[in-house]
């Protein structure tokens, strides 16, 4: 085998190693950089609330992308285990970076920072949202 062929083969082998690694590293990079909870989905602007007080759901996180309806009904996007919540209680909407809340005309109402919500309202991080006995905090 001539020295030239040997050199070409040598570099071909190492080159193929790196090609393989490059293919892997590229997609692993995006995979690891993604949000830990939504591992294989494209990153979207999302908002998050944490249930801070509740009979059974304390500590649960609610992730909002686009639009999410919370309520006591099993058909709601996010189920609230609270006897004072309506079947479809409120809607959270993401518009770009801002999250807004709308009460869906409920009997017991929704309270943001202690005030009853009348129309659509913009939520800021740290705001507290109360439905019946359940209190959520905006992240």
């Amino acid at each position, binding site marked *: 085998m001539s020295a030239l062929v040997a050199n070409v083969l040598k570099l071909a082998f190492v080159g*193929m190693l790196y090609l393989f690694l490059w293919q892997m590293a590229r997609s692993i990079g995006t995979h690891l950089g993604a949000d830990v909870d939504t591992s294989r989905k494209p990153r979207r602007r999302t908002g998050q609330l944490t249930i801070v007080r509740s009979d059974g759901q304390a500590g649960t996180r609610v992730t909002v992308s686009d639009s999410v309806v919370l309520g006591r009904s099993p058909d709601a*996007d996010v189920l609230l285990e609270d006897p004072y919540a309506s079947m479809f209680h409120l809607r959270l909407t993401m518009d770009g970076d801002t999250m807004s809340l709308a009460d869906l005309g409920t009997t017991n109402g929704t309270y943001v920072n202690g005030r009853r919500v009348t129309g659509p309202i913009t939520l800021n991080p740290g705001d507290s949202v109360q439905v019946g006995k359940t209190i959520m905090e905006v992240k």
Partner: protein
Amino acid sequence: MSRNAEAALLVGAAILAALGTAIVTAAGGDRPDAQTALTFIIMLAAFGSLHLAFRQWAAEASPYLLPIAALLTAVGLVEIFRLDARAASLQRWWLLIAAGLGIAVLFLLKRLGIEALLRYRYLFLAGALILFLLPLLPSSWPLGGVEVNGSRLWLQLRVFDTTVVRFQPAELAKVLLVIFLASYLASRHRALSTMTRRLGPLSMPEPRQLFPLAAAWALSLVVLVYQRDLGASLLLLALFASMLYAASGRLSYPLVGAGLFVAGAVIAAQVFDHVQRRFDAWIRPWDDFADSGFQIAQSLFALGSGSLTGSGLGLGRPDFIPSATTDFVFSAVAEETGLAGSLAVVAAYALLVAVGFGIALRARDPYRKLLAAGLTAAIAIQAILIIGGVTRLLPLTGITLPFMSYGGSSLVANVIAIVILARLSHEIGNSASPSSLAVASQLRGKGNAK
């Protein structure tokens, strides 16, 4: 990356193995023969069947695990073939066996669930301890230990005075131990991270919580002294310390663990000759070049003559290094593919470890997190110990390089570790569990789905 991309990369790894084998054959002056085809077919069969099993029983599993394992196995097979064609053909058989066992483990995990591992944790602990101590059986028995190169690590099964199979039970014990530790620590991580006592400037948890660490230290010293195996002993202690760290988030555990080991090793070096010799060979390999420093010196020559792009496969002299197919396979690869090739190998391990810790981060409960972190740490620690050892960064410890070294037990154990990681990553995507966490993940899942 999709399952199809995974399949394409697996074919790529098989082509790489075949290309390497062909280059080695050509460098010897022959035409590529059946060995090249056989390497290609067996790589494809082993990883292809694992891939199909993933599609069947872990469809959401991370698609990165298998290709990296295949790449490392391919490079290992090529270098083993270059050094010892007979060992390579044995290793190919082991690869098929490992794939078969991996598929069986995946099927069981799917049927019984990861929780099954939790339920029988003390069985796993007992199994691990027995496997660790099996090589101490008298070598005259049909199933007995053998001493190879001064370390008593091997178990051999003999029928009518012919050795049927040799196995390093510690490799499998390592996986069992991680399974036990993960379930043990998952139920105690709170107690381990609350520091209730103070000892001078150090705060420490309740002494009884420290019992496992003390037991680990004792076990690692027993292995060091009776089996004369510095590698397994270091691996054990590092594994305990890193899993305690993962469980408690307290840096003091690995620090204390390291301190304990150094203390133990210093004492062992005073009392036992073979430990002292190891340290001398590390610090001053040239003083006793012909004897204790020979291995490490040959390894350094190989690294040096490899230079940037290596001598070319089949064109170097890695056969000068003692046990080049097992512990020193990294030096052999470094000689023939140079710094470029050896850095690629290191990068592959780094990617594998990144993927493994990524799975641990995303896992949904402490047990799964610790299991993923522990299995990943085991692979990482082994790679660090032996690559560090052959480059004289660390004292040389006889330990296999995962996926690359010649050796059936190591290959089987590491494939099983990858399969468990795959199943863990599959479960991140699927949260149909009866546990109390189901509510939380259901809520989260629904919120995301919109």
